[in-house]
């Protein structure tokens, strides 16, 4: 019997006013006309709750770009799911936010690109975005909703992590996610411009440890050392098909939001397959579930059921084999690839390939916004 999932990540749309060069969406973005409709999403939310999901993350793209976001929040809440909105915050005004709260929204996670406005706007590729985000954060707390600030960090903003921690406190966030960029898709195309240095990383880790003690009981800080400086891989998604499932804007049911980057899969279609059938019986969810699929050195490793072999998307992106041990592991025969990437990024510039629907495959870096 397969244990049920804990959470559903619903990527409602790939539309987004921001153009962050580390976006976790696939490089092949879904067009608005291909998105699932309100009724289908609402059915999936009920199926998720019946399957055992406790939480739902309404994400994108920018989820509030959906005109039916109010109906979708209500449907998720009525299904009994703890409803979390993952947003850039630039499209919502106070009236609309209050309506979302009244519809049952439980929590808001707001992204910030930096603590310094000009840099934040350049990284997000959206002029004036940072100021809008600060206004939005104040609306969230004024509406009585709990706020998490999500700061994606990399070489071009990591030095300002202490200022981002101060920003989280000033905005009344109860939680701060300090998320190092994960290098797949868009971020992999921008890896040289984003990879932090060891000195930056050590300073950031020390800043987080000090802030956790200083703000204990007031601000929870989630922080994980990035793969490229790790010696053991992260437990990606808590194991393939073990705790989470995601649904893409076009309705593909996925073990993780990046799984469509893997070749040779037929991911179940939510228009014709139930979440339960996908979770329990599909070949895609079963392929890397558990430990039976593992190659050496994962097979028999004492940590096999701790990190579950690491990340399949990273294994594929770096080795060409989705079933390989994640190269983040020092025991992987490909571990040297990470050191080589760090070395290359040391000599690289700061220009980005922005995330844009027309930019496929990733083109040459563009100069910073003026």
């Amino acid at each position: 019997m397969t244990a049920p999932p804990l959470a559903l990540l619903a990527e409602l749309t790939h539309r987004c006013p921001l153009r962050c060069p580390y976006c976790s969406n696939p490089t092949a973005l879904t067009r608005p006309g291909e998105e699932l409709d309100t009724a289908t999403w609402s059915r999936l939310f009920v199926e998720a709750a019946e399957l055992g999901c406790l939480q739902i993350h309404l994400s994108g793209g920018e989820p509030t770009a959906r005109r039916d976001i109010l109906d979708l929040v209500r449907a998720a809440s009525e299904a009994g799911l703890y409803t979390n909105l993952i947003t850039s915050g630039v499209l919502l005004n106070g009236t609309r936010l209050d309506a979302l709260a009244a519809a049952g929204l439980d929590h808001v996670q707001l992204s910030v690109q930096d603590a310094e406005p000009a840099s934040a706007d350049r990284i997000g590729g959206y002029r004036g975005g940072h100021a809008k985000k600060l206004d939005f954060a104040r609306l969230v707390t004024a509406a009585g909703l709990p706020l998490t600030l999500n700061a994606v960090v990399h070489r071009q903003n990591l030095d300002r992590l202490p200022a981002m921690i101060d920003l989280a406190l000033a905005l009344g966030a109860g939680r701060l996610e300090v998320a190092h960029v994960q290098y797949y898709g868009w971020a992999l195309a921008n890896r040289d411009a984003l990879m932090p240095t060891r000195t930056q990383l050590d300073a950031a880790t020390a800043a987080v440890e000090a802030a956790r003690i200083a703000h204990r009981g007031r601000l929870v800080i989630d922080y994980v050392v990035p793969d490229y400086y790790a010696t053991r891989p992260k437990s990606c998604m808590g194991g393939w098909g073990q705790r989470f499932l995601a649904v893409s804007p076009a309705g593909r049911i996925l073990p993780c939001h990046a799984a469509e980057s893997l070749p040779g899969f037929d991911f179940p279609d939510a228009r014709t397959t139930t979440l339960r059938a996908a979770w329990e019986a599909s070949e895609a969810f079963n392929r890397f579930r558990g430990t039976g699929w593992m190659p050496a050195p994962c097979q028999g490793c004492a940590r096999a059921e701790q990190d579950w072999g690491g990340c399949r998307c990273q294994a594929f992106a770096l080795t060409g084999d989705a079933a390989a041990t994640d190269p983040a592991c020092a025991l992987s025969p490909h571990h040297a690839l990470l050191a080589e990437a760090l070395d290359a990024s040391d000599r690289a510039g700061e220009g980005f390939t922005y995330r844009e629907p027309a930019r496929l495959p990733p083109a040459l870096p563009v100069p910073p916004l003026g």
Partner: protein
Amino acid sequence: MSPETVPKLARGMKLREDKARAQWVVLGPERMFVPDEIALEIIRLLDGSRSLAAIADELASRYAAPREEILADITSLLDDLAAKGVVTA
């Protein structure tokens, strides 16, 4: 926390029944706590008006246990939940 403190679930924390796993859970932003039987009973008594002392009175009347011992136990449990951001004073 002192006996006069009136604790409540922190903003964003919700007690929900988890039918698929036959348990009760406290859900928060990207987090989840599974309280044991005793913690669950205490969390159910957090109504925003009961003080720690009142919770101890209630539990002492339900169980044949010394009130002072109960008060010490719930104070330590709630202090722990407060540090985790689940409960606020």
